[in-house]
């Protein structure tokens, strides 16, 4: 493992931008392409927003943790955890356009985006215990990436 960081922060929506820019700053040492940075920032934003809206139902005094590990072969691993309500039916939740909160204008695309932008997505969830997402992405090896 080349480098590792763990970030824990309050489940307030102001921290969504902070979380994704911190992860982006951390993976910068792998010289990712602009697209790779955008994709990783997006999945972090989706996962953190899910924890705030669904996991913690907008209670602002809970905590979200992001672990980011990067490897010499330019692979990135993201583990995002909340201690919130948990997901009843993961299969249903992963359905594109499925959302349990349409009244909040949620588009139900969070998990589809994570699936599409990352190489792998694992969802572990227990009712009233919380949810952990493990996502991995192999960044392209070319050196001509901008950072």
């Amino acid at each position: 493992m080349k480098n590792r960081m763990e970030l824990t922060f309050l489940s307030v929506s102001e921290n969504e931008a902070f979380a994704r820019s911190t992860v982006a700053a951390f993976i910068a040492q792998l010289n990712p392409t602009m697209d790779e940075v955008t994709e990783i920032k997006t999945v972090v934003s989706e996962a953190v927003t899910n924890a705030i809206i669904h996991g913690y139902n907008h209670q602002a005094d809970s905590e979200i943790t992001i672990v980011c590990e990067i490897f010499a072969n330019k692979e990135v691993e993201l583990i995002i955890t909340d201690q919130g309500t948990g997901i009843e039916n993961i299969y249903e939740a992963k359905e594109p356009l499925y959302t349990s909160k349409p009244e909040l204008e949620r588009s139900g695309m969070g998990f589809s985006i994570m699936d599409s932008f990352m190489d792998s997505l694992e969802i572990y969830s227990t009712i009233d215990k919380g949810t952990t997402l493990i996502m991995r992405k192999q960044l392209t090896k070319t050196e001509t990436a901008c950072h």
Partner: protein
Amino acid sequence: MGLKTDFTMKEHVLVVRLSGELDHHEAEILREIWQQKLRDENVRHVILNLEEMIFMDSSGIGVLLGRYKEISQAGGELVICKVNPSLKKIFDMSGLFKIIRLEDNEQYALHSLGVAS
């Protein structure tokens, strides 16, 4: 980086210019202001210029779809222009362009809505 919003009326068309990052935090604020504008101004159609939008997640898609529904229910049209390349992937995934018209720039959009640009 937050979100900057700019609203201007051109005859009965509301032109919305967004710059920066649109996530859940900013979407909550944008929804408020945008709905306020739709109520206050005599708005028929809306043009959304995303040239300076550098980041959007699914919360952004949600707030756009929400406004699209309101505008079309009121008999108007939402036209989007200048979609920044970095948003391309998420827009394609959302299938937004199957239901919302995309124009090259504000002039074309205004023209298509019968307003001299």
